[in-house]
C-alpha cells in the first residue's frame, strides 16, 4: 500500500517527500478523529477501504493536482481502528509559493472525500456502532451525506 496505511501517519515524512529547495510554500491538511457526530459522543472509529481502487484513485487525484498546479503533493489515509484525536488523513503540497500549495492541498482533500472508496464505522460512547454516511443519507429520509 502506498497511500493507505495502518500505521500512525507521520507528517514529517510527508513533508520530506514533497519538499525541495525550489519549493518555498508547503501546505498541509490533517483530518483528525472528532469526539462527536450528530450531537452524540464518539469513542472511536474504524476505517476500511476498497484497497486497490482507493490506491488507484488517490494516485489519479495526485496526478491531477500536479498537472494543474506547479507542486509536488502526496497524501496518506489511515485504515483500521483509530482513537479520538488520531490523524485519519494527511495531505501535503509543496510549491514555489503558497498559492499553489494551498490550492493543490485543498483540491486533493476535497477530491479524496468525493471519490476515494473509504468508509468509517463510528462507535459511540453508549456502545452503539454506526456506519457513517449510510444512516445519514439513506436510512433517514430528507438528509444528505456529511
Amino acid at each position, binding site marked *: 500500500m502506498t497511500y493507505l496505511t495502518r500505521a500512525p501517519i507521520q507528517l514529517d515524512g510527508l513533508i520530506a517527500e514533497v519538499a525541495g529547495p525550489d519549493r518555498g510554500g508547503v501546505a498541509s491538511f490533517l483530518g483528525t478523529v472528532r469526539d462527536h457526530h450528530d450531537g452524540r459522543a464518539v469513542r472511536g472509529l474504524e476505517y476500511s477501504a476498497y484497497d486497490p481502487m482507493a490506491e488507484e484513485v488517490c494516485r489519479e487525484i495526485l496526478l491531477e493536482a500536479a498537472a494543474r498546479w506547479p507542486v509536488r503533493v502526496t497524501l496518506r*489515509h489511515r485504515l483500521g481502528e483509530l482513537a479520538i484525536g488520531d490523524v485519519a488523513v494527511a495531505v501535503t503540497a509543496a510549491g514555489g509559493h503558497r498559492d499553489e500549495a494551498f490550492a493543490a492541498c485543498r483540491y486533493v482533500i476535497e477530491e479524496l*472525500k468525493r471519490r476515494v472508496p473509504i468508509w468509517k464505522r463510528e462507535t459511540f460512547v453508549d456502545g452503539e456502532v454506526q456506519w*457513517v*454516511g*449510510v444512516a445519514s443519507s439513506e436510512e433517514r429520509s430528507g438528509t444528505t*451525506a456529511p
Partner: protein
Amino acid sequence: MITPASVSATIRVRLFASYAERLGGELIEVPAEGIRTVGDLLERLRALPNGTVIGPATLVAVNLRHSPPGTAVRAGDEVAVMPPLAGG
C-alpha cells in the same frame, strides 16, 4: 447462488461496509444472464433479501473505475457496489 457450472457466467460483486453486513458477505457472485448494465445489476441486487439497503446514493465501480448506471457489465468483470463514501 454459486454453482460450479455457472462460475464462468457470473459477475463478481464486491460489497462494502453496511452493504456487506446486510447482504451477507464481501463477495457474492450473481448470474450474468439478463444483466447488461450497472443499472441491471443494481436492480438484481435490490431484489435480494435486505437488498433495499442499496439506496439511491449507491456508487458502483466496474474494474476499479467509478461507473454510472448505463455502464456495460460483462461476466468476468469485478464490480464493486459501494455505500456513500466516508473517507477523510
